[in-house]
């Protein structure tokens, strides 16, 4: 496949943290290419470095060394402001914990990325309602996070990640905190959304069953790809 189809490209990513007098190396020269509309899973045990890689590829963290490009644009050369706008427009994130703002209703939580992008209250509300309806949460829109179940919370978090129609969705252990039945439903939702919204999907998980449903699975161990 030609390089022009590559949406996101990470090259030789190194990340380490200072621990006491020594260095704790988390990523040791990891490279990865994600094509447009591609779905892939990163599988690995806890501490393997998969979440760190996801954070770096999602521009939430910066590597000590390496390169990161999105359609040829050098993301690591961008300033905070530019990077924030880029993240708002192009990327969506779902985490193990829903991280919804407890003072905002489900609808308002989903509206936040649109409002951050400068969209009007009316338009943001319209988009958020539409997406919550798609998620089967229309009647729960005005509920606050403490009034929602675990599965509903995660669906609201997914709606928040997708409301700006990003081109890539990063999910870090999105089902790690759910019971098996709810987890199955959320997994189905991811695949349905991927097809409907034509977005690239990168899932980090240690759930082998979930990972094997993806056409492409990368295994990570000790900060490196495992062959």
């Amino acid at each position, binding site marked *: 496949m030609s390089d022009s189809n590559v949406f996101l490209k990470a090259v030789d990513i190194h990340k380490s943290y200072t621990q006491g007098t020594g260095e704790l190396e988390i990523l040791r020269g990891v490279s990865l290419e994600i094509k447009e509309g591609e779905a892939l899973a990163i599988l690995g045990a806890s501490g393997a470095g998969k979440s760190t890689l996801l*954070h770096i590829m999602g521009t939430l963290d910066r590597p000590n060394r390496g390169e990161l490009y999105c359609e040829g644009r050098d993301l690591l050369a961008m300033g905070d*402001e530019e990077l924030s706008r880029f993240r708002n427009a192009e990327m969506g*994130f779902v985490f193990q*914990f829903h991280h919804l703002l407890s*003072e905002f209703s489900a609808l308002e939580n989903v509206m936040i990325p649109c*409002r951050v992008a400068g969209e009007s209250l009316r338009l943001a509300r319209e988009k958020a309602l539409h997406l919550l309806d798609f998620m089967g949460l229309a009647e729960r829109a005005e509920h606050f996070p403490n009034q929602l179940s675990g599965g509903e919370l995660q669906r609201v978090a997914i709606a928040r990640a997708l409301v700006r129609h990003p081109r890539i969705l990063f999910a*870090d252990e999105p089902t790690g905190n759910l019971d098996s039945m709810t987890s199955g439903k959320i997994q189905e939702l991811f695949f349905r959304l991927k097809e409907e919204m034509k977005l690239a999907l990168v899932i980090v998980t240690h759930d082998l069953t979930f990972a094997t449903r993806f056409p492409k699975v990368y295994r990570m161990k000790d900060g490196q790809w495992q062959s």
Partner: protein
Amino acid sequence: MNKSLPWIAWRLLMSRKTLFGGSAPLALLGLILGVAALVASMAVMSGFESTLKKAMADVSGHAQVVKRSRFPDDWRELEERIRKIEPTLVSSSRFVFIEAVLAHSGKISGVLIQGVDPERVNHVLNFRSRVVSGSEDLRGSTEVPLALMGKSLAAKMNLKVGDRFRVVVPVADAVDPSKFQRRVGEFQLQGILDLGKYEWNERFIVTDLAAAQKVADIGDRYSGLLLRFKDVDHARDAAFQLSQTLGSPYWIRDWRDANENLFEAVQVERPGIFMVVLIITLVAAFNVSATLFVNVVRRFKDIAILKTVGLSPKDIIKIFALQGVFLGAIGLFFGFLLGFVLCGLFSLAQSRLGLISGEVYRLDSIELNIRWVDSLAICVATLAICFIATLAPARRGGKLNPVEGLRNE
């Protein structure tokens, strides 16, 4: 600024995690008390100044023209000269001051009789607004001339409206100036006035110019003209202009001259008191700052997710700075309300308990005055302090690494 920031800042502030929990209510209470103290103290300072200013303008006019030698007989000619020099002159009225002794019901008191032209006095002075009982109108056909009196003097002499009283005026003997003749005048009390200043209420009597001239046996002589201009605040410039143009032997003094030291004291003390009381707000702002620091730590996760959805570090700083400004605005709103309540209590206390000693402060009551310029200074100072107090916690929030917040479950 991103339009979503005030929305997010407000919603995050109005929560149990922030405003309705922890130390935030106490920080806000401190701010409210600081603002209320500022409002009340400025209202007292400005009220003192405006009450004194109004009393001066109401009772002695915006300015007075006096002459060291005998005044010209034709006062209308002098008025025209003044009007030509100062076109903002509204009206003038002749006046005379006579020292006398009031004797009534076995009590005596030294008094100052001000004789005024009853036909014109209401165009220059404002006794009407100062009537406590009776009327301010000195025109009327009664057997004895009508007079107005300060409320404390009337109370001391046990005089009521309609009562008659006598004054004794010492008049220099025409043959031997070292001797005095007693001249007695009788007046009927037409109205009791609250003249604003303590000493005026204690010894001021106002009567018809002709009656005053008669009792003092000075013929048609008068002390000078009382002047009223369109704007009381212009009186000082007008008086200066008149002084320059009329020259000697005329002497012009405006409403400030008689109490220059008091007005000067207010001018000097007002910013001093403002700064001292502002320290309360400053201390309260430290509490706001500490509260926001705690809030930043408690919001670790929320800050992380806000950065994830596209807010930049600068936006996060703005959110917390906005929260400081909102806290300041809430403090101002309730502080002003509490300030008004304090002013009400102060007014009540000064009327019921005689809070202000007239002998010390020259005024026995102050009409509290909350000037817009004081209010503006309080608002600007409070918001600025709150904004500055939030900068340190806001910067900390901006610097937080989102990854740390996302892991911190």
